């Protein structure tokens, strides 16, 4: 591979190869300040390749490949190369990560207590987590939450936050311009812009936190809070995990332990201010 970029994100190291320099330049810019994998050894390799050899130059088309691949994944145009790199990393985690229980969730931490925000895509958890990350909470991750199988601690995986459509403007008002990646238009999901977590999140990427609350946030409805039972939480979390089945008994142990130790709430909120207020209420209750 002509071009290479290596990056350590939390507990996971990536080696990313590309046939074109552009995507990796953008990636290096986005992950400014992140360390390189220790000893140069990566946990996963991502490859950005031309779909067919002649597509390297002619209407360049980026196929997302690597150690773990989705055979029918559609390639992206080169203009979206940064997105391809991010998707490539997601793919490796989703298909190959088996050291920790992987939850499709955002997580934030304050005073040693971690909140897990999980639910369907588009429910607003990513934006909520990013906002909390600018309001005194430490952003541990917006896409994947890593649960240690033995200790039950949540581990950071602070990838760049993937903001979509309206959320972009919301966060542009909150975070300094230098932390943003380019605005990518015309993606399958609309407009996307990536935001690097703040310095504290990056510096503390090696610090785990004990989960204290599981939230199922849902944007767009009148404010409401409902306790979620353990069995329902368990089931919803297995659905939110890409590797629960692959982990076998240790995964079962870790997840049942999480669900019995940590309360779960479903919250509906009509706007972010309400959500932030609710979270602050919860935090105070937990601290009491």
């Amino acid at each position: 591979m002509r071009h290479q970029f290596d990056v350590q994100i939390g507990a996971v190291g990536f080696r990313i190869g590309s046939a074109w320099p552009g995507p990796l330049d953008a990636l290096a810019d986005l992950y400014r300040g992140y360390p390189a994998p220790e000893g140069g050894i990566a946990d996963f390799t991502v490859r950005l390749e031309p779909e067919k050899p002649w597509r390297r130059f002619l209407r360049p088309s980026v196929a997302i490949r690597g150690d773990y691949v989705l055979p029918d994944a559609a390639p992206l145009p080169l203009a979206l190369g940064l997105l391809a790199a991010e998707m490539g990393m997601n793919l490796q985690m989703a298909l190959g990560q088996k050291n920790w229980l992987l939850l499709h969730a955002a997580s934030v931490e304050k005073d040693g207590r971690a909140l897990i925000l999980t639910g369907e895509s588009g429910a607003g958890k990513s934006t909520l987590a990013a906002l909390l990350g600018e309001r005194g909470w430490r952003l541990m991750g917006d896409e994947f939450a890593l649960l240690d199988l033995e200790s039950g601690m949540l581990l950071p995986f602070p990838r760049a936050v993937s903001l979509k459509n309206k959320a972009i403007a919301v966060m542009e008002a909150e975070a300094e311009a230098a932390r943003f990646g380019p605005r990518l238009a015309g993606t399958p999901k609309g407009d996307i812009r990536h935001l690097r977590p703040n310095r504290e999140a990056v510096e503390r990427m090696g610090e785990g936190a004990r989960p204290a609350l599981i939230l199922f946030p849902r944007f767009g409805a009148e404010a409401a809070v409902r306790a979620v039972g353990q069995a329902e939480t368990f089931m919803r979390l297995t659905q939110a995990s890409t590797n629960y089945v692959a982990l076998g008994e240790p995964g079962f142990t870790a997840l049942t332990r999480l669900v019995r130790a940590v309360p779960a709430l479903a919250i509906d909120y009509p706007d972010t201010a309400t959500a932030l207020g609710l979270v602050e209420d919860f935090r105070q209750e937990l601290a009491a």
Partner: protein
Amino acid sequence: MKAAGLLARALSDPHGTAIEDWNALISAARAEQLIGSLACRMEGRAVPPRVAAIFDAARRDSARQRTQALWEAEMARRALAPLGVPVILLKGTAFHAAGLEASAGRSVGDLDILVPRESLDAVEAALLAAGWEHVKDTKGYDDGYYRRWMHELPPLIHRDRDRMIDVHHTILPPTARPSPDAGALIADSVALENGLRTLSPADMIVHAAAHLFADGDLAGGLRNLWDIDRLLREFDSDDFRRTLDARARRHQLAGPVARALRLAHRLYGTPAGAGRARLSDRLFEARLLARNGWGQERRKLIRFFFYVRSHWLRMPPLMLARHLWIKATR
């Protein structure tokens, strides 16, 4: 190009092979479905901490794949036991079920079983009754193609467990040139404690060789030859080599088996394959080692040659033309 060669050396001599580029080794191993085997072979070797974590995860994942494979076999056993027909496990599942050395770190995909041809209908009915379903889109071909020309039922998938089962009645397509003796495969099969069966060790090697050369374009070849290496070393003796030779001839696969052993010898030092290499062996070897340290397959020309060759072997030329024409017009 060197990464695949490094992988082969690391598998045969896990403690003595110097590794400078661990990323290349790991990516090549993952691409060749050999990361579990490599991790097991390297157990006990002092490796960098990141590599140790990767190997730990790979070993645990292997164990999980083993559990899943044996469970699929058990569920098939429960569904088919009332029929009273021999059910023979194939490939990775068989290695795990029989506790063979070839099972160490061996990844397993779908469940493959072999049953007598005349029992195919009854087997299909029993599987459907027990929760398996037909897979909808079978490579764009309809049912007829599968039943008439291929050597298996159309693939079935279990509706709850989402795992596939491939039911074979012989080990090569009936339309292919070599014509293995399915009856002999069954007659010589070995019973396991639970009533399921495996091929005899010699037939396992013959099957692996057939699968490698006649059934595909050498994809997964490094793993296939590793299987052969492990199998041969576990059962090796003068007697066994004579038996292996006899069985290979019986199944009209003497050429492929001999070539497989020669290649395994070149790659892994397998004892039975020593002897003069043919010129064509080099071509096969180059194809097998076409994986680089990024996990990519290089040497596209060789790959294309083997792709066409594999289809040519599966079907006589006229049929091949028809097959390619139908594919092109769909």
